[in-house]
Structures are given as structure tokens and as C-alpha cells.
């Protein structure tokens, strides 16, 4: 089902009946508890800003509240929610296009897992991650979005295809091309050094 109508039929269960108000609220609460972390990661993969990512997650659920009548018909809420959040991320990114993209090392250090690493090693790892993230930002848009969504653990290739409105094979080929281009850029930088 590559078409939008096909995806829509896949998401919506037409046999379901509308729930009362209380059940809709309970359903939204359950969605928040189950998918807020996933949506945060999706938003953070693009914004790389904790405040902006949280704002996008909240805006996503506000939109869910606005369309709560559709909740009863949802079959795959994860794809639906990620799609809403992804569109919000892209809108916000488009609006703040004039702002220069800078990769702050402190932001990367903040998301690094706390372990037994020394401060020097943490700094070196953060610098390396920041460099790769900068190179990811230089990739073409379609390859970049597929690569960032594939980084979110909770999303499968099929779900990424549904979110982006494309096929699984397209997603796989874009991921492959993106990784190859990224590796080439990294090797080029390493050779220059």
C-alpha cells in the first residue's frame, strides 16, 4: 500500500465506534505515557535542543487532543503520532532557517551516557559525535531525514516508510546512500587531518 489512501485505510479501523469523552481522555493519557519518549527522540534528532524537542512533543499531543474524535479509529498510533511530530519539526526547522546551525559540544555531552569515562574521554567522544552530526546536516534532505528517523530505536523501516509516505525499499536505499556518503565525508576529513 504505497498510496496515501492505502496507508490511511491501514491506520484507520473503520469498524470501531466513537468513544465517550472519558475514554478519549484515558486514551490520550495512555498515548502520552507510551509514546512521549519516542516523540521526544524524534524531535530531538532534528532540533538537538531539549527545550524545543519537549515543546514539539507537547504540541503533538495538543493536536491529538484537537482530533480526539479520530482516536477510536486509530490502528497504528505510533506512526500517526510520529508523523504529526515530524511535520511539526519540519515546520519549525523551516521557520528558523535563517538561524545558523551550530553544534554545541555541551549539548552532546549532556546526552552522553554517564559511565566510568574520564572527563577527557567524554570530551573527545563529544567532539567526535558533534563532528558526525555536522556532517549529517550536510547530507541531502531526503537522505538526512531517513537517517535521523532510523536512529530512533523504536521505529522500524516499515514505520519510517509510513511516516514519510514512501516504500520500505526506498527507505533502505536512502539509508544506505546516506551512510555511504557520511563515511566518505568522514574519511575525507580524516585524510585531510
Amino acid at each position, binding site marked *: 500500500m504505497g498510496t496515501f489512501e492505502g496507508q490511511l485505510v491501514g491506520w484507520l479501523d473503520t469498524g470501531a465506534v466513537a468513544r465517550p469523552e472519558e475514554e478519549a481522555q484515558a486514551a490520550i493519557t495512555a498515548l502520552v505515557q507510551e509514546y512521549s519518549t519516542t516523540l521526544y*527522540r524524534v524531535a530531538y534528532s532534528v532540533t538537538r535542543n531539549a527545550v524545543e524537542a519537549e515543546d514539539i512533543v507537547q504540541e503533538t499531543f495538543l493536536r491529538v*487532543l484537537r482530533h480526539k474524535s479520530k482516536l477510536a479509529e486509530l490502528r497504528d498510533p505510533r506512526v500517526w503520532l510520529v508523523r504529526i511530530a515530524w511535520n511539526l519539526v519540519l515546520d519549525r526547522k523551516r521557520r528558523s532557517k535563517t538561524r545558523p546551525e551550530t553544534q554545541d559540544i555541551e549539548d552532546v555531552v549532556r546526552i552522553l*551516557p554517564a559511565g566510568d569515562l574520564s572527563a577527557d574521554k567524554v570530551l573527545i567522544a563529544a567532539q567526535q559525535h558533534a563532528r558526525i552530526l555536522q556532517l549529517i546536516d550536510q547530507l541531502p534532505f531526503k537522505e538526512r531525514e531517513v537517517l535521523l528517523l532510523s*536512529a530512533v530505536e523504536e521505529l522500524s523501516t516499515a514505520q519510517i516508510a509510513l511516516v514519510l509516505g514512501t516504500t520500505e525499499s526506498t527507505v533502505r536505499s536512502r539509508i544506505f546512500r546516506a551512510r555511504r556518503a557520511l563515511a566518505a565525508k568522514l574519511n575525507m576529513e580524516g585524510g585531510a587531518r
Partner: protein
Amino acid sequence: MKTQSEIDATLRLLGSAQPPSGLERRILGRLDARRGGGTTLHFVSAAAIAASVALVAAGLTPSIRELAFHGTATTPRALAPRGVPHPAGGFGAASAVHLPAAPIPVQPTPVSQGRGRARSDREWTPGSARVRLPHGVAVPGTVTISQSHPGRMQTHLVTIPAGSHARATNAVAAH
């Protein structure tokens, strides 16, 4: 291989970012605030609409208006004017006899208002200009037969002297 592992590590780090603590609580709180705000807003707007409709209805209905604004509902009904039946009987406006209840006073005319001068004496005001009639213009008066010369006629000319409205009469003998 090292490059691929570096890419994997970075993507893994990006995709496993932990949300700040209390994210769910903040989201649910904001949703509750939106729900409550929306309900209150709907209630206030519905109440305002109902109040305005009630006010308009009260203003348009005379009995409710009296009751609401004057505390009484004893407004006498307006009586329809009684028609005077035609002596010969009949219906419609053609057969109706309209008798005034009281004598209709006669409207004062311009003469009775003190402006009863002859038309030739009045001032002529075309537009805003104020033009006086020329004085001393002779107008034909009366024609009499001369007693001394019966075959001749005498014409009395009426002139208006300048500065006054008195009339003077000059007799001009007609030859």
C-alpha cells in the same frame, strides 16, 4: 569499519536521548489546562449568547418589556380607531365617512402673518441676493374723461416715490 562504528555510535546516541524528567507530567498538565480552558471558554461564550438573545427577546416583546423594566404587565391594549358607519350602509374606503373629532384650525396664510403686501411691493430675492424693486416706475392707473375737453382722456399714473411707499399720482394729459 571504524567509520561505520563511529556513525552507529553517534546515531545510537541521538536516537536514545533521554527526555527531561517530568515530561509526561508536564504534557498531561498542559492538556488538562487546555481542556479546562476550552470548556470554560465555551461555557462563557454560550452564556453570553443566551443572555443577549434573552435581552433582545425582552426588548421586542411589549408585555415582557413592561414586566422586566417597569415591574408591571398592565399595559392597556391599543384600541383600534372606530370607523363611522355610512348612513346608507356599505363597506370599504369609498363608503366610509370621515368625521374629524375636533374642528381643524385654519393654517395662517402669509397675509395674516404680516407679510400681506402686494406682490409688486415685495422684495425679490433670487438666491441669496437681495434686490429691491426700482422706485418711481409709472404704472397705469385709472383713465378718466376730461370735463373741460370731453373728447380727451386723462390718465392717472401711479408712481412710487423713492424712500417711501406712499403713492403719488401725476396726471398726464393725453393729447
